[in-house]
């Protein structure tokens, strides 16, 4: 293991190199570029033996990765925002084909208006595409998820593509110290890709075929099972990871001071670091508040959320996306989890950080204070409730 000063993008690239991908296809888009630049440098200096394909679009990036996966090669790509949306056709295609591709997405706002900064509207809009979705908080976790993602995606019980999300700029471009494991350790952790879901000269197959009404539901149900199976395989991967690398991860969610908390803020991505600081400050002042960070949105942590918040008096969901005409999509999903667990806890939805807008410690603190009023509503940070400005 070696300590390095790395940006989130660079850390992710180091994690990908450790996984020894055989084909990398990528098209540049801010703020993803650093990860593919770094990988191309690794290929150039010989430290990564991979075919680096300079595709002419994001659609081709994922189409090419699917081609590589269809013959059993380990494939990686990366994108962001408009690029993710441009390849949107290929997302459910890769998931339905059960191709265990790993893709990093640098979370960025979607046009219009144009904006290159971070929010999560891009990936959250693709929750229904059939991909596993993870959200990293810091560079170390980004690196570790990069390596673990291949293990999870390629596991024969899962066989599902994996989208690892890093908040644009805030995480992708911020430098932190991260441990880079040795290649020997990584090889011990991650076996070569083995799959029957491929074309080969030894056993010719027809892939990515049509399935009519009689069998279609069965294929789709099995796809659903695959991503549900990821729940236990994520756990398995993290146990193995801790055994080899000594770093501990907590599955689909991460709880901080939730056990006795009256008020819990649920969020995801890099903002969790600041929320943790606010929780510490408020705890010092005697306020029983906590943080629940969603590390994965697919598979969705229904049971984990219910278990973590069941004794809380009120909840807030803070997210960097909005499903226009409804509410934040994470909020919708959290409420479904609560309903399934028969939990009736007052809760509010806070939409923040859109187009890279800073979320301050004061704003987070005020969310906790507003929770004591126990109202249920959708609020835009810095604007107010839905009636504001009318």
């Amino acid at each position, binding site marked *: 293991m070696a300590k390095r000063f790395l940006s989130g993008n660079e850390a992710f690239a180091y994690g990908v190199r450790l996984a020894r991908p055989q084909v990398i296809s990528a098209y540049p888009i801010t703020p993803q570029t650093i990860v593919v630049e770094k990988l191309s440098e690794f290929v150039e200096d010989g430290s990564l033996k991979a075919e680096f394909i300079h595709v002419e679009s994001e659609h081709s990036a994922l189409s090419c990765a699917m081609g590589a996966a269809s013959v059993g090669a380990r494939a990686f790509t990366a994108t962001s925002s408009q690029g993710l949306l441009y390849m949107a056709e290929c997302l459910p295609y890769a998931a339905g084909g059960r191709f265990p591709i790993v893709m990093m997405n640098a979370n960025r706002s979607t046009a219009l208006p144009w904006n290159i900064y971070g929010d999560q509207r891009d990936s959250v809009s693709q929750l229904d595409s059939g991909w596993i979705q993870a959200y990293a908080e810091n560079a170390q976790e980004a690196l570790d998820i990069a390596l673990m993602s291949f293990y999870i995606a390629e596991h024969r019980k899962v066989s599902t593509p994996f989208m690892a999300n890093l908040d644009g700029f805030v995480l992708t471009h911020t430098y932190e110290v991260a441990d880079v494991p040795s290649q020997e350790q990584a090889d011990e952790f991650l076996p070569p890709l083995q799959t029957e879901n491929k074309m080969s000269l030894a056993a010719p197959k*027809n892939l990515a075929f049509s399935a009519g009404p009689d069998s279609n539901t069965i294929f789709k149900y*099995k796809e659903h099972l695959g991503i549900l199976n990821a729940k236990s395989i994520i756990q398995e991967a993290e146990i193995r990871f801790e055994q080899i690398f000594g770093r501990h991860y907590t599955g689909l969610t991460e709880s901080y001071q939730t056990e006795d908390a009256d008020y819990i803020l649920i969020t995801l991505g890099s903002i969790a670091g600041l929320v943790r600081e606010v929780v510490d400050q408020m705890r010092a002042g005697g306020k029983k508040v906590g943080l629940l960070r969603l590390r994965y949105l697919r598979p969705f942590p229904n049971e984990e959320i219910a278990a973590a918040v069941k004794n809380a008096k009120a909840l807030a969901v803070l997210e960097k996306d909005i499903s226009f005409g409804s509410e934040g999509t994470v909020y919708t999903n959290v409420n479904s989890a609560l309903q399934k667990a028969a939990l009736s806890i007052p809760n509010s939805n806070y939409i923040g950080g859109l187009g890279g807008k800073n979320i301050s410690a004061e704003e987070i603190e005020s969310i906790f204070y507003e929770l004591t009023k126990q109202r249920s509503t959708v609020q835009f940070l810095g604007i107010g409730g839905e009636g504001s400005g009318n």
Partner: protein
Amino acid sequence: MKPFLREKVPTSFDEIPDTTSYEAGYLVTKNAGWRSVRPIVDTEKCISCLRCYLHCPDGVIFRQDGKVAVDYDFCKGCGICKKMCKSGAIRMEAEK
């Protein structure tokens, strides 16, 4: 070798694969029902030039005993073989 008709048609939950991949060249239905006319080869006239075999869009004409024969399970009766035959060895006959 070519794709051929199988007896087993995967239909149940367990028979349907977990992924959209399956053995190459797996046929479970014929195309014979499409046909209103069928090609009949007169082996006396056939000189085995193989023009019919070459031009068949469905590949259902094959060599047999130095002449050609037709796989009626998959012939659609398009009539290209008759058109291609320079020795008048193929005629189209109405299906009953």
